[in-house]
């Protein structure tokens, strides 16, 4: 019959109109900012630096190896080594900047980091009126505690902690083996 398709369409929109009042599966809209979606664990936005202990700067896991700086596809990371008085580079960053207006959240820095020191954050309300002052994050803005890391990525953080613990034990075992072996060699 002519008009059948059009009438079917009308029924469909009417069904949706009615459904929008009682069927929550149809209404996917969230009333942001009053309502917020719980982010999935894997969700990522911009990187941050993990620190252990209480001091955000001293506890940084970063050893300033600059691998992430080199591998970053859009080149948004900028690292300068800390140096001692004689100019010898120390294993600590003096400057660690991430320009989040350039960063494309690709997570490659996280993947290449051999020290598990840079991870992806989930914070997303980052709008600012100052391009250079607010959107270039410095070391102190980036440093976040291991607890925070556990909060946002619990599974991943547990795995990382286990790996680090194993590495530390291995390292200690080697050290103790070395120290237990050295005395006889001295004699």
């Amino acid at each position: 019959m002519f008009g059948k398709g059009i009438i079917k369409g009308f029924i469909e929109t009417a069904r949706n109109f009615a459904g929008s009042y009682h069927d929550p599966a149809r209404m996917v809209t969230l009333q942001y900012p009053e309502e917020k979606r719980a982010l999935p664990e894997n969700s990522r936005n911009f990187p941050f630096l993990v620190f252990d202990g209480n001091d955000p700067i001293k506890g940084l896991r970063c050893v300033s190896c600059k691998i992430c700086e080199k591998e970053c596809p859009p080149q948004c990371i900028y690292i300068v080594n800390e140096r001692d008085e004689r100019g010898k580079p120390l294993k600590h960053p003096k400057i660690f900047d991430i320009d989040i207006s350039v960063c494309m959240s690709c997570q490659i820095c996280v993947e290449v980091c051999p020290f598990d020191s840079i991870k992806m954050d989930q914070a997303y309300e980052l709008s600012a009126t100052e391009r250079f002052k607010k959107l270039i994050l410095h070391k102190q803005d980036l440093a976040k505690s291991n607890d925070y890391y556990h909060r946002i990525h619990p599974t991943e953080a547990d795995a990382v902690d286990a790996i680090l613990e194993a590495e530390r034990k291995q390292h200690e075992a080697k050290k103790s083996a070395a120290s237990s072996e050295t005395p006889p060699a001295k004699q």
Partner: protein
Amino acid sequence: MINTGLAAIFLWAGLEQGLGKLLDHGLSLLPPAWRTWATIVVLVGVMLGVFASLFALSTLLERKGLGRMQNRLGPNRVGPYGLLQPVADGIKMLTKEDIVPRGADGVVHFLAPLVLFAPLTLSFAVLPYGRHWVPLNLDAGLLFFFAAGSASELAAFMAGWSSRNKYSMLGGMRAIAQMISFEMPLVVASLSVVMISGTMSLAAIVERQEAWLWIFPKWNVFTPWGLAGFGLFIVAAMAETNRSPFDLPEGESEIIGGFMTEYSGFKYAVFFMGEYFGMFAVSGLAVTLFLGGWNAPLSFLPASFLWFFAKLMALVLVFIWVRGTLPRVRVDQLMNLAWKYLFPMTLLNLFVAALWHYTAVWRAPGGLALRWVLCFAAIAVPCAVLARAMMRSHKWAPRVYRFGD
């Protein structure tokens, strides 16, 4: 619940009559020289106020309704449930910068929204809103209505031409072709009512429909010719007011904004309002011609202008529903629809109306049913055949697909 509702309706009907009397009385206190002018001022003020608030209400309803049809919430931020959204829209429109293109014809560009708006408000004057509530009860009200309404074609073309924008130009050309084409079926569809009622006065047409079959009304729409005429009238009215699916003159996915492309701020708002006013006007006419105007839907309920507005809003809701569902037709299909389908069908409908009129003498039992079947078949069968022939000639049909491995 029902009782309180009924009581409220009767109370309102009484109030309505009282209000009219009070107004008459108040006016009669004035010196006779002032009376006419005072009447005009009061009427114009009331009508502009009523229709402006109706406009605000229907923009809100449209946005809410479309939102719900699309599984969105619609505006809900301004005021409780977003009720103040039209106010916010209005403030936004008024405070926007008015941009006129450098190459535009300034005078015509400025006049176009006014030329659209003024005749449309004129056409409100002849609509009978309630018993004795006709601002301008002309003997040829219908003629006046169409004469005033067709000025909007000029406005669309003025806007399209004066903007000196190719999209505006295309939109203006589309508008003028479309409106002139659809004026024909619109007029002919209303002619059938004129033929049956024997009058061109809109108030008289409503009064002719004040008859009852037990408790059900005998509106024109409840006759075969009226039903067909109403359907054809609504389709033509959608095209005449540039509503979806016939919103080609401003088809924003094709020609950006059509003739309104180069309008901004308050002038755009006037265009926008004009579009809604046009919709109210033709819906009002449809209510008058086919839906019994101010008459109540059941015989024991009092007549009131509220019925008129309720029917009008129901039609507006239908317009919104259509807009939420249907895609737009193409310009050549639109012309085909007007000249090859609607126009012949409305002409045929005149004959069907005549048939209905002359078979009224059949008083035998079952005569009514026979008349219905006969007249309905006389209009429905050609409609279906013509539609099918159109689909066939263009090879439009649902398809079956094959699959490869």
